[in-house]
């Protein structure tokens, strides 16, 4: 077929070029904003206040939703001032419930968490990705479990406990939950109800900032751990919370196996690096050369320069920002590894420029 080589050689690409998916998505979303051919979307059908600065959104998913395992998280995309922004949130409900929920706590300076807490209304549409993550229960349920949570780290743990309660858990579970002050406790009522209904569950709330009657006070310590779980060695440990808690917990637990999850942008976790010289970055598609400091991720520094490459989670999970690096080496912010010089695909949201780069952007 010499006359029509495109159709002959790449029939799939040709069909895709006719944009059937875009057409289907357009027509479906015109009928109902929740409908979509490709995207998983959710309508907010209920909003619950949790503690002083958190909110639970009850979501009605569309047909593309494939469900989740307790403890997993989803990418949530929200349009803020015309711009689509993605963040990962743990599902706080159990998989058995009809409507999944996410619970979002306001973070200092957090764009999306503030938007969710202040602007989202019942009826709004969110875009949600597939559930993912390894913060889940093993297929063979262990006899004894210890869960340590801090602040908004309770969300996947709430999901896990609810799931266990629905699955008629026979073992024993202890939860150590750190909050800043009494009103800061998320899911206080729900956890109390679960504790009352299930004999295998024991919950201990600890406050860290403001003392309150009937509540323990202080940060995680060896004594606290010994007193609460003398049988620590026999327990499987789940850990979810802010970085300082995780660091101290992991130190106390030593080389014990811990299932943990930490959501932080790579720029927050790592000590900021200072660079001596500006790095030249050549953008081959846009025919521009710009100078980057090489201190933050390439994506962030490009955005500071007014160049908006496609991006998603900004934490190296979703691979939306993957772009071809033609030459030059970068440093991965997640593990501080230095890449090779040659051509390869990199995630620009977690890569820092180390020298002159050529990117296919």
């Amino acid at each position: 077929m010499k006359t029509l080589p495109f159709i002959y050689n790449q029939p799939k690409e040709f069909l895709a070029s006719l944009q059937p998916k875009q057409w289907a998505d357009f027509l479906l979303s015109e009928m109902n904003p929740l409908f979509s051919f490709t995207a998983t979307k959710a309508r907010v059908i209920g909003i619950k206040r949790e503690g002083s600065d958190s909110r639970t959104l009850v979501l009605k998913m569309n047909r593309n939703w494939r469900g989740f395992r307790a403890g997993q998280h989803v990418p949530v995309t929200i349009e803020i001032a015309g711009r689509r922004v993605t963040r990962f949130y743990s599902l706080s409900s159990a998989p058995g419930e009809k409507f999944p929920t996410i619970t979002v706590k306001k973070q200092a300076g957090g764009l999306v968490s503030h938007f969710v807490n202040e602007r989202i209304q019942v009826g709004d549409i969110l875009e949600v990705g597939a559930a993912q993550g390894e913060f889940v229960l093993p297929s063979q349920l262990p006899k004894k479990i210890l869960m340590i949570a801090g602040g908004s780290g309770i969300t996947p743990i709430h999901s896990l406990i609810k799931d266990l309660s629905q699955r008629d858990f026979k073992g024993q579970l202890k939860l150590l939950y750190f909050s800043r002050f009494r009103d800061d406790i998320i899911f206080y009522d729900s956890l109390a109800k679960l504790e009352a209904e299930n004999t295998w569950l024991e919950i201990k709330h600890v406050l860290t900032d403001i003392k309150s009657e009937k509540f323990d006070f202080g940060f995680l310590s060896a004594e606290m751990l010994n007193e609460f779980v003398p049988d620590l060695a026999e327990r499987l440990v789940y850990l979810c919370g802010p970085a300082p808690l995780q660091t101290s917990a992991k130190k106390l637990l030593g080389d014990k196996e811990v299932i943990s999850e930490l959501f932080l942008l790579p720029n927050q976790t790592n000590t900021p690096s200072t660079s001596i010289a500006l790095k030249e970055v050549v953008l081959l598609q846009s025919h521009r050369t710009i100078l980057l400091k090489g201190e933050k991720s390439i994506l962030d520094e490009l955005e500071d320069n007014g160049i908006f490459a496609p991006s998603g989670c900004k934490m190296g999970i979703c691979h939306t920002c993957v772009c071809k690096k033609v030459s030059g080496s970068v440093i991965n912010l997640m593990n501080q590894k230095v890449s090779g010089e040659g051509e390869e695909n990199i995630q620009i949201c977690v890569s820092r420029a180390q020298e002159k780069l050529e990117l296919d952007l």
Partner: protein
Amino acid sequence: MKTLSRNLSKQEIEAFGQELDQIRTEVMAKVGKEDADHIKKIYRVYRYTEILGRGLIHFSFDPITFSLGTGLLAISKILNNMEIGHNVLHGQYDWMNDARFNSRTFEWDIVSDAKQWKFYHNYMHHTFTNVVGKDHDYGYNFTRLTEEQKWKPIYLTQLFSNLFLMFNFQWGVGGHGPKVEYLEKPKKQRTKRSYKDYRAVWFKKIELQLVKDYLFFPLLAGLNFPKVVLGNLIANMIRNVWTYAVIFCGHFTENAETFTPEEIKNETKAEWYLRQLKGSSNLSGGNLFYIMTGHLSHQIEHHMYPDIPAKRYQEIAPRLQKLCVKYGQHYNVASFPKQFASVWKRIFAYSMPDKFALKIMESRNTKARQRVKFQVAETIRVEEKELISV
């Protein structure tokens, strides 16, 4: 002979540039939901007009529904190319992070590969605007519009060749892609080896467009096959004529100036701004007209700020006009018929050798500007002499 714009000193040009940068920061700070809503609205109109247009052509049995369908399809194609395509490919909506409006993922309904177009338009044309020899959009290589292009007998036919191009404009736009990319890309940056490889990219797009318009949709219509072919052909042609008219009014009107590569050596950003002002011309009209031209009615604003969402040009225009008055610069704006007539006048004039051309046209190139500079200096000297003698 005089140019319409005052000659500015170095300091004046830099001050002019700073004021333009100021406008840019102020407008960019406002970009947000309003712009996102605008482009989404246009996107809906584009999709609906295409469904309606194609639907009407498919099921048309009388000339009225057929012409209505063809007209709607033409509108859809114009919106896709102009207000959506051209602006999206400039990266005006990249900040939305939406694949439908991202310059890296967008592909348009025209026989021109978006990536190739971005190279020769966003980079070559917008950087070297009206620089003869560097700006490949200048006359599309076969129209003579200034004395810097040497006259050849073939130019005598340019009235007719432009008439032909007008109806087949998309082929001119597309055909430029592989050629310019091959000629202008430094060898190191080339992703493909030979001209043939670059041409293959374009051929792929041609195949897609031709099969879609003249095979796929006609086959869907069954017995109505010939009518659908005709409808698509006419819709494409209406789009071609319209885009040709709008785009030629952007830089080839009577008073749009041209430049030489020597002149732009070591050019500063402020001087670049000034060159964009001198080399572009605007069209006056209403909101609907602006949208149908993809806001190329605001060619001057577009050339100064190619990556600001296009609807914002409407609010930039009055501020820029004030600036032009302040600095004594000519702000080239007139109605569409007037500007288009002057384009044809220019095409006609320069189809003849300079001797005749300059009888019809005032030249607006580098040499003419330098002559004026010289003349201005001279008159001042004469005045001084007179003062002394008194």
